[in-house]
């Protein structure tokens, strides 16, 4: 069997109203097989109600070498955190 099936990243929506979250990756020969593999590998314990699979090759990633210039400048801007709001207990998933 071909060991070089393309890699797909798997995203699961755990329940209606929530966002899809990255959970891992699988190998598959085609998109239909990728959905079946994601289902069989990652939703065996009722983890979700919806699946996305994305070819890993389609993901454009930031360069770790550029992390300093990309992310450091935010470090001294704590005023961007809206921490002065009181969040009522009834509000979930904010």
């Amino acid at each position, binding site marked *: 069997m071909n060991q070089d099936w393309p890699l797909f990243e798997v995203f699961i929506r755990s329940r209606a109203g929530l966002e899809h979250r990255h959970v891992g990756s699988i*190998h598959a020969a085609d998109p239909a097989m990728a959905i079946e593999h994601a289902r069989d590998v990652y939703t065996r314990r009722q983890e979700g109600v919806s699946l996305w699979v994305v070819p890993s090759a389609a993901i454009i990633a930031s360069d770790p070498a550029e992390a300093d210039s990309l992310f450091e400048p935010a470090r001294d801007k704590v005023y961007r955190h809206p921490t002065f709001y009181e969040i009522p207990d009834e509000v979930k998933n904010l």
Partner: protein
Amino acid sequence: MSAPAAIQDAASGLAAAHVTYVLRLADTSLILGQRLGEWVGHAPQLEEDLGLANLALDLIGQARLLLSYAGELEGRGRDEDALAFLRDAPQFVNLSLVEQPNRDFGHTIVRQWLTDTWQLLLYEALTHSSDARLAAIAAKAVKETRYHQRFSSGWLVRLGDGTAESHERVQRSLDELWRFTHELFAADETDALVAAAGIAPELAALEPAWSARITADLQAATLTRPPAAAYPWHGKRGAHSEHLSHLLAEMQQLPRAHPGVQW
């Protein structure tokens, strides 16, 4: 024979047929589930290993519900474990197709796809059974089986319309297994009794839809449908190939060596 005796006789005939019919459904799922379980740790990819195990667990889940129900209908105190582990091969009434041994992955896919397509139509029809318990079991099983058919037909197309070697191997498996499909629609007196009582559909009525689905999948897979098989296999009457005894030896060894063992 007096009239009341004749009525009683007919009722006990139906009762026995009802037990046998449910047992046939149960055994077909159980044996196919066990066969698929043999792939665990041996499938060509990790993802397929889990995929086949998932199918196996669905099938064994169906078998548990059906065996428990058959035991209740029978009324002799046999539970699912007694029926699964303490019967010998001649008492099993699964279709001959599902006991055929695993060969390569494509062979397993062909066996699965032929059975899935049959079970899907059967379970859909059984959701309208006059037997409410059987209809409820079928309603659960039909969702599982719809996925099974999607899985197996997807692989059939990939292998059939794949490389020259995968095409040739899967066609050979189809040619070998095709002779066991005759039994899928060969109704006997048990089938006739449960169909007349509205418990089960007429088997012959399912054949056109099965045949159409099979032909469509084969076309997509660029495979050739073998000629009609005339040889009547009789797994559902308890006449089995030697393969079933080997399967049962492995499946039943532990509960027979340690009666009542729990783990």
